[in-house]
């Protein structure tokens, strides 16, 4: 299976995005870079001992990230996204690629075999991409997947043997929540009225 860069071509410049309202996504991305998140992920995973169950959970997470990357790719190739929105999609997809790389590295460092990505056509079929008819449809699909991913990462925390991995899972959930929040705002949707709606 190839591991090609899924969104081809240069992303719109950061200046262009900033002048068009993409401040939140870019700033969060910058924070991630400043905090050295990828390195921390790798170290936490590498420091973890054995535990086949943890590897299994990480592989499910990796499969989820593969699908998220595919979903953004489908959106990018749909032709429905404006230039500015495409830039945000690229930004969010890059986060998922960073998650993918960290998870795959961790699995291998723990002696596991990292699950491979499926083909884009597989993801298109599973996500019913043929039903996407507009930019709004694409963004709603992305928001749905991000919301599910945030909840999934929170929901696996109690299952990790490693507290380090549990913490990393919480950090991954935070990334997905950030994506969902931005997408929801873009779609004009409402944020939850109640506290503690994520995870249960």
């Amino acid at each position: 299976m190839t591991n090609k860069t899924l969104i081809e071509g240069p992303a719109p410049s950061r200046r262009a995005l900033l002048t068009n309202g993409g401040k939140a996504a870019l700033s969060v991305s910058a924070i991630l870079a400043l905090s050295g998140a990828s390195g921390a992920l790798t170290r936490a995973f590498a420091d973890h001992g054995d535990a086949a169950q943890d590897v299994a959970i990480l592989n499910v997470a990796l499969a989820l990230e593969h699908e998220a990357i595919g979903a953004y790719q489908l959106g990018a190739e749909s032709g429905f996204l404006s230039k500015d929105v495409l830039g945000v999609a690229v930004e969010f997809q890059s986060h998922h690629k960073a998650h993918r790389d960290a998870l795959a590295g961790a699995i291998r460092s723990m002696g596991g075999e990292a699950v491979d990505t499926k083909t884009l056509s597989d993801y298109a079929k599973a996500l019913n991409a043929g039903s996407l008819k507009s930019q709004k449809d694409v963004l709603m699909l992305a928001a749905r997947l991000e919301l599910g991913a945030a909840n999934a990462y929170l929901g696996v925390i109690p299952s990790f043997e490693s507290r380090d991995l549990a913490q990393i899972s919480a950090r991954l959930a935070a990334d997905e929540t950030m994506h969902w929040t931005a997408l929801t705002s873009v779609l004009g949707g409402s944020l939850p009225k109640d506290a503690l709606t994520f995870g249960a």
Partner: protein
Amino acid sequence: MLNRKTLHLWLLGAASFLAFGYAELHSMSVEASADQPETARTMPVTRESPTNAVEGQALYARRCGACHSLDANRIGPRHRGVVGREAGSLPDYDYSDALRRATFIWDAEILDRWLTNPEATAPGQKMGFRLSNADERAQIVAFLEANSETTSAIE
């Protein structure tokens, strides 16, 4: 570590984003909240809907939707018809050995135990997700039950 300037810039950016959004996108007609996922709007509960099943529909999308769909195998197997189905029995899904060897039939009780702690239910399986909220488990199980009966049997 973030310095104060970086944090200030981020907060300013986030506030601007939330206040004004993307002008182009905010001009779009939004028929449904992004908090109400596509599955929740387009997959009606298929039998006379108990409250739990209706609420479970949205919860299913939120809690399970990262990995599962009713009609497509994704990270996890498809769920339509799961209640009453033998564990690990879909021919086109790559189950863990633990579920492939399992002989139980999914019912409400086992699903509740599974969602509480899948590893305790079938050691060696690969789902780490746990749902500790009993009310939410009940709503999701009700939704799965509602989508596990044939249309002819329930209409």
